[in-house]
């Protein structure tokens, strides 16, 4: 030891730091103390030399966030971020700072790691270790520091976008981007806390201690343990701070909500939101804020889905395993979306796991479902394949009803997604989706309907951080009936609709206060409104082929999210819609002084290959948010929308065979103007979210039909159409508990939805031209979703729904006319069916949470309609031995239990 000091040289090439340190320790015969997890991920390259161990150590740690402290020449302590000072710096962090006054080397690590110890102590409290940011220097920046970070899954690799990272106690927050990266600025020196939340993941409060500009790597655990926390909003603060008001959630969070026959259904969850309801169980579609079911834009990876349900609306037609996220806009609809009046349901499919083969599978009483994610090229391209099918014919085989013995029903859907990162600047995604339902009630007829979608998306990063999104989508919806017949009367009837759309969108931030979005979309529609053909060569069915309809819908939009002050932000959007019918086709001109009928038809002109009727309109989209307090905001919005495609249905509830019709010279586009005003708040540090929002909506040219209209295979359907004004208004109250053993939400809506069908001609009036309630006017609507977590593995959930019964037109008597007896009906919708209520219960049992097991299992047991309430779906009348009798039909008149097993792997 008395030997003269000689310079030692160490050369490393990607050597783990731990190894390098032990080499150093060995060579210099010194002890170096450190926590292995600080160095485990670090490697060292380069040549380091020096006479003393301390010198070399200092050199080696120079580019890391680690500091070294020499206790004595033989003992060194490495600290993370923290610098250990031999004496207290004046004015620095009072009190808690440990000084190196410990003598016994053995105790040194413990003592020297005072902060780490403290962290540990806190970590048991918060289940989160303290994170130290930046290397400590002798200065403190008064402007605070920049904290950059990356948020990933527990694997440390899969980035988690869209998470909210809030600096607690401030209004500063960041949202992680697609790479999981985020930047928080002006983060003050010293202790702080990051409040991180993301749907489907455990919300965490991450204590930090900031010493300098620095980078942190954070990871979140999927909320397996927090399944009860059916969190609608990524973050309570988001609801308060966002300028618009979108609801967004993912299937994972909905998995503990009680199911209908074991099928997980995002849409069913959507109907528990205020302002969203359905006409009844088994009715396709949703009514959003008093709007018709055809006024919702349902997008799957940006392609329109015309019928998102199986089996008349009882089950979702979209595989829940394939969906990453569902976002619902019902009030302040961004300028990016258009073409439908009431809402946007935007579904995004998952990014297939590019790391390893993984997937999910489930087995329920109705369907089997399997979804696989397969990496193709490590970390850059991957594939997702999902398939789901109802057990063929199971449904009707359980029936004892003799007239349905020959009935069969099947449905299935499949999804395929490819995603590839071509290079740093280009990402492409391709999604293909198909769903089909087929059923027959007798051996000679088959009814079917199907959706087919294709979407191609290309994301390109331009200069100055702009991202250009381009998408090409194609959707097709068709339905038909094949009837083989008993004699020579067999026929095939059908309908089909295709739309093809090209879109380009981009965003540009100008300074800190302006964020511009702009884009363009061109859509081509083609509709085959109906055909009827002989089933076989011997059938004498008359061929009917109604003229095809075609149109082009174009839209450009521009919107600017303006931060006016710390409290106030404004989003100003403008969307211009341009619609033109294109040929070949026919344009019918009717006399204006009498009701549209064959009698008033003046001429029928060919459109040729040029443009037919043209419509245009400007849709302003304005929303404003003002933060009254950090946790309380007031928001207002105004929205205008146009809709050029409409469903034709004179039934009281929507059905899969409602065909879509394009606007033409006789059927004007629908228009809607909506005003909304709301208060959004969170309380208890984000434990509770509360909101109250009112809306008022005026609609024009809503489509309805003459009493007794005939729409199937009608080549002049405009003669059956009535167009009128709609008026809807309501107040939506929402209370959500986001955390804790008990969680869930309660939504109450009071709303009205009214329609006016007036005309100068008496025969075109309904209810004498006065406003009357629509078929889906349900003034009181209460929904509750509750969850109670007994243990990490066992949770209980309940679902409560109460709604005013929907309006109905009743037969009120008979009358004699021309020697025959006819039924006299009341005015349209002047009665209501009884109120609807339902309670569902569920128990969810998780498999154990051991790491590294092959798969994770999940049992869910639910009882739908646990009270066995016989809620009428419709009321109708039969003539039983000369006596008119009122009967009701219901979809679920008894409690329906089911059990489903799901695995994740």
């Amino acid at each position: 030891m008395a030997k003269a000091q000689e310079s030692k040289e160490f050369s490393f090439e990607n050597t783990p730091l731990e190894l390098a340190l032990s080499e150093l320790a060995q060579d210099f015969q010194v002890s170096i103390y450190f926590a292995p997890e600080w160095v485990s991920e670090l490697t060292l390259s380069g040549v380091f030399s020096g006479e003393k161990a301390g010198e070399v150590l200092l050199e080696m740690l120079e580019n890391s966030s680690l500091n070294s402290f020499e206790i004595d020449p033989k003992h060194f302590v490495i600290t993370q971020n923290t610098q250990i000072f031999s004496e207290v710096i004046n004015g620095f962090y009072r009190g808690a700072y440990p000084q190196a006054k410990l003598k016994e080397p053995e105790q040194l690590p413990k003592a020297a790691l005072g902060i780490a110890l403290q962290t540990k102590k806190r970590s048991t409290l918060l289940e989160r270790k303290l994170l130290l940011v930046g290397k400590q220097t002798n200065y403190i920046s008064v402007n605070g520091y920049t904290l950059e970070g990356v948020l990933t899954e527990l694997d440390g690799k899969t980035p988690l976008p869209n998470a909210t990272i809030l600096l607690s106690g401030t209004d500063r927050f960041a949202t992680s981007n697609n790479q999981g990266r985020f930047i928080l600025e002006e983060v003050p020196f010293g202790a702080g806390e990051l409040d991180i939340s993301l749907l489907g993941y455990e919300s965490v409060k991450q204590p930090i201690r900031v010493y300098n500009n620095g980078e942190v790597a954070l990871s979140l655990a999927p909320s397996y343990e927090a399944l009860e926390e059916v969190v609608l909003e990524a973050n309570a603060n988001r609801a308060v701070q966002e300028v618009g008001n979108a609801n967004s959630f993912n299937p994972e969070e909905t998995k503990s909500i009680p199911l209908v026959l074991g099928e997980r259904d995002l849409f069913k969850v959507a109907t528990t939101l205020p302002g969203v309801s359905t006409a009844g169980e088994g009715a396709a579609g949703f009514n959003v804020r008093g709007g018709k079911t055809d006024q919702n834009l349902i997008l799957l990876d940006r392609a329109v889905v015309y019928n998102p349900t199986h089996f008349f609306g009882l089950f979702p037609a979209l595989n829940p395993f394939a969906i990453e996220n569902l976002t619902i806009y019902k009030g302040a609809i961004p300028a990016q979306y258009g073409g439908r009046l009431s809402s946007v349901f935007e579904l995004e499919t998952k990014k297939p796991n590019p790391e390893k083969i993984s997937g999910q599978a489930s087995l329920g009483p109705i369907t089997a479902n399997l979804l696989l994610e397969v990496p193709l090229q490590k970390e850059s391209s991957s594939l997702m394949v999902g398939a789901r099918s109802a057990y063929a014919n199971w449904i009707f085989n359980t029936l004892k009803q003799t007239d349905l013995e020959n009935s069969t029903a099947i449905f299935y859907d499949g999804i395929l997604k490819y995603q590839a990162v071509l290079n740093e600047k280009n990402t492409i995604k391709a999604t293909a989706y198909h769903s089909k339902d087929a059923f027959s009630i007798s051996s000679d007829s088959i009814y079917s309907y199907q959706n087919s979608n294709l979407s191609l998306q290309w994301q390109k990063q331009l200069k100055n951080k702009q991202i250009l999104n381009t998408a090409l989508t194609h959707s097709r919806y068709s339905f038909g009936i094949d009837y083989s017949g008993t004699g020579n009367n067999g026929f095939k009837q059908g309908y089909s609709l295709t739309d093809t759309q090209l879109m380009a969108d981009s965003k540009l931030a100008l300074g800190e206060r302006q964020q511009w979005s702009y884009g363009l979309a061109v859509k081509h529609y083609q509709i085959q409104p109906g055909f009827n053909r002989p089933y076989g060569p011997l059938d004498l069915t008359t061929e009917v082929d109604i003229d095809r309809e075609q149109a082009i819908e174009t839209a450009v939009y521009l919107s600017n999210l303006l931060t006016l002050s710390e409290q106030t932000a404004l989003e100003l959007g403008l969307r211009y819609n341009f619609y033109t019918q294109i040929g070949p086709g026919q344009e019918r001109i009717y006399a204006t002084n009498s009701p549209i009928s064959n009698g008033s038809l003046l001429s029928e002109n060919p459109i040729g290959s040029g443009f037919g009727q043209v419509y245009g309109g400007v849709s302003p989209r304005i929303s404003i948010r003002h933060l009254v307090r950090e946790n309380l905001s007031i928001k207002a919005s105004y929205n205008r929308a146009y809709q050029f495609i409409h469903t034709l249905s004179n039934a009281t509830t929507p059905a899969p065979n409602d065909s879509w019709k394009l606007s033409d010279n006789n059927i004007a586009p629908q228009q809607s103007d909506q005003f909304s005003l709301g208060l959004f708040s969170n309380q208890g540090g984000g434990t509770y979210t509360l909101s109250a929002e009112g809306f008022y909506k005026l609609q024009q040219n809503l489509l309805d039909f003459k009493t007794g209209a005939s729409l199937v295979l009608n080549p002049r359907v405009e003669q059956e159409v009535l167009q009128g004004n709609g008026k809807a208004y309501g107040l939506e109250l929402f209370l959500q508990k986001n955390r804790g053993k008990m969680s869930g939400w309660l939504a109450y809506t009071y709303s009205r939805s009214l329609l006016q069908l007036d005309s100068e001609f008496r025969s075109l009036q309904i209810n004498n031209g006065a406003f009357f309630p629509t078929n889906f006017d349900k003034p009181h609507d209460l929904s509750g979703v509750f969850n109670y977590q007994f243990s990490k593995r066992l949770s209980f959930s309940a679902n409560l729904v109460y709604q005013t019964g929907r309006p109905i037109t009743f037969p009120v008597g008979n009358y004699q006319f021309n020697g025959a007896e006819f039924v006299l009906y009341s005015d349209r919708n002047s009665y209501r069916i009884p109120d609807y209520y339902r309670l569902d219960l569920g128990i969810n049992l998780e498999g154990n949470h051991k790491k590294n097991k092959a798969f994770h299992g999940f049992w869910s047991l639910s009882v739908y309609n646990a009270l066995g309430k016989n809620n009428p779906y419709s009321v109708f009348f039969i003539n039983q031995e000369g006596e008119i009798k009122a009967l009701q039909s219901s979809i679920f008149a008894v409690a329906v239990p089911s059990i489903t097993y799901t695995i994740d792997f």
Partner: protein
Amino acid sequence: MALFKTTYLSLLKHLKKMGLACLLLFQGCITDYEGTIGGSSEVLVVGGILTNEFKKQEIFLSRSYSFENLGPRYETEAQVIVTASNGQTYSFYETPKGVYKSLEPFAAQEGLSYQLEITTVTGDAYVSSPMGLPPPTTLESLHAKATTNDQGVSGISILANGSGPANATKFRYDFEENWKIIAPYWSPYDLIVRSEGRTQINLAVVDRETEERVCYGSARPEQVLLTSTSSLSRNEVVNFPLRFISKENYLLQHRYSIGVKQYGLSEETFAYYQTLERLSMASENIFSEDQPGFLQGNITAIADPSEAVAGFFEVSSVSEKRIFVNFEDLFPGEEPPGYIVDCLLSAPGADINAPVGSRVLLNAIYSNLVRYYGVNRGEVPGGSSFLMVSANCGDCTTLGSNIKPNFWVD
């Protein structure tokens, strides 16, 4: 044709209601409605067709009625007049069953429009919109043809051919069909119960007093028969199917007749009937959920235009014809259809030892289930001596009227 009308929609709904519902219930999915239904107000119902026939024109006035009632209350003591656009006024007088007849016979004329004015006994006034007479059309011919229908059933079709000027393209058909019925087990005698006591029964075989062997059945169409020629190049109705009768139908057993009226309708009248037809189809199918509603005709209450008034004041041209059909003319050499039911002979006992009210024969006579056919000479072994037959085999008045229609030609 019928199948085409059973649209995809209603079949879907059928499945939805029956299949879906029952599947998920595994028990009664259709139950009695538990809610309340509002009572009906009595709405004025106006009927009647002013035609181009020179006759006493008729208007029918009644009220709608609730389901518990079997028929309407007729509107009495109303003042009914029809005003023509040339200033001519026709007054109507009341006859039984809500029928109001014009004081003088008259025919609706082309080029004029007519308005119906009604003042009820309570002083409420109603007026129709002015209705013009469409150009007269002609029912050219009516014929019966042996055919096989869509379902592969062999039988006869009654077909109509009509024509009209180019501007009269809407047609409605109405018919009354009649057929001869001969009770196959008719006997000239009746068995009657003179008295029934605890220990004594007095039965008598007497002459039948009314005609019960030969009767005439009649029926009207079950649906509104409408056709339009507006999409055709010539204004001709060719072989419009009015009625299909299966070869097995007893209507064809002896002799069948159908009298058809062809009405030429205005556009407005045609549209009204179309809706009426669709609405009544909807009410026939209990599974249909097509949006029903009140069907407003062309009558308005003057004091309150929003008051509901059912029915329609129709001004139409009419042309009529009648044909007779014999089975052997269409299916020569083939066996005509049998009687409407299989006839069963029985010989129930008078059961003198049974208590009053439990005697099978007597009870059957009281409730008109059987008629006397003759003496049981072993046709019904072990039975009593009274050979009885079910009422509709021994008495044709159970199926039709014993009054021969005045147009009937044998």
